[in-house]
């Protein structure tokens, strides 16, 4: 089993099975371009620095990739079906504990940076699910977001959304 070492922004090392890293477009490109796949060269032992991903987040990313090992990678954007994507139970449980904290968002940003399409999709979908069935003020209250709209802006939005009332 070929292992490749990823180095997080806080300099933690994570030896990861080569096969898992195929899920990350960013890392896959690096591996191919830097010839890290070739066990006969010194490059194979070279760690891959990921200056935009902290250790605890990278650990979660790897955990997610391990669970999804062998899953087909999502090809390109498929906006047509965004609303119908279902977050599998395992992923829901995986995201849930961190959902209302910055951790989940860091994971989402990392998925974007590392170009892990399936993780990004499910992560975004999991966040979007938290809005389901809620009104604007309810979302505001749940998130602790102050109402910054002026009465004029609120009126404008009300008018723009009028068709749906």
């Amino acid at each position, binding site marked *: 089993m070929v292992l490749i070492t990823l180095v997080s922004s806080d300099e933690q090392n994570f030896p990861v099975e080569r096969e898992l890293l195929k899920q990350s477009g960013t890392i896959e490109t690096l591996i191919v371009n830097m010839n890290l796949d070739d066990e006969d060269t010194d490059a194979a032992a070279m760690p891959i620095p990921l200056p935009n991903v902290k250790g605890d987040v990278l650990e979660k990313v790897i955990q997610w990739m391990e669970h999804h090992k062998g899953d087909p990678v999502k090809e390109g954007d498929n*906006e*047509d*079906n*965004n*609303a*119908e*994507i279902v977050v599998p139970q395992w992923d829901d449980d995986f995201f849930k504990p961190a*959902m*209302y*904290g*910055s951790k989940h*968002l860091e994971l*989402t*940003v990392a998925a*974007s940076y590392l170009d892990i399409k399936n993780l*990004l*999709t499910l992560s*975004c*979908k999991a*966040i*979007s699910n*938290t*809005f*389901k*069935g*809620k*009104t*604007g*003020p*309810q*979302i*505001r209250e*749940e*998130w*602790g*977001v*102050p*109402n*910054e*709209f002026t009465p004029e*802006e*609120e009126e404008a*939005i009300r008018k*723009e*959304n009028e*068709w*749906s*009332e």
Partner: protein
Amino acid sequence: MVEFLYLPLEMICEVVKFVDNNGLLALRKVNRITRDAVDNVCRSMQIQNIYVYDFVFVICPTEDFPEAMKALHGAIKRCPIDNFTFNCKYKNEAVITITDRFLDGLNVKKERCLYACDFSKDESHADKFPLEGMELPKLRKKVYFKARIREDRNDAFSISDVNRALGFHAFLLNGFTDPVNGYIEISDGNITVD
């Protein structure tokens, strides 16, 4: 979750793409960032084609703008439309006026008149639809809008039904499927109103 709002707008938009229609409406009311994100995402979703058939003219003998079309006009005016195709056998001042009023304020790149319409051949109205035969631009999405309200079914539509089905173009690209009263169907990016 307030940290969500500190994400780059691009990332917020990424999440917004997955929000259902009611969620989009709710997010517009949360704060300026989420409102802008929703608008941003919806702006990037564009209708490529609007096909207008005999629709209102059958039920609209005067120059009054039918309520359903008013609502539709209001709903899609924020959405870029690549092609507006007019396909109507009627030709009279009322039809032209209504069509002009429908187009007024819409963000249409190209207007096109199909063969079935005589306007382009009628010198007195040639300037209304001068673009017959123009090549269609490359379509990023195939979104067809067919508007045809039959006289015997006019009362089958309520304005809110039309609005709900067509009003928020985010629906289109989300592949929303919801036959309304059997006359509006949205599926795979195609809209048929019949």
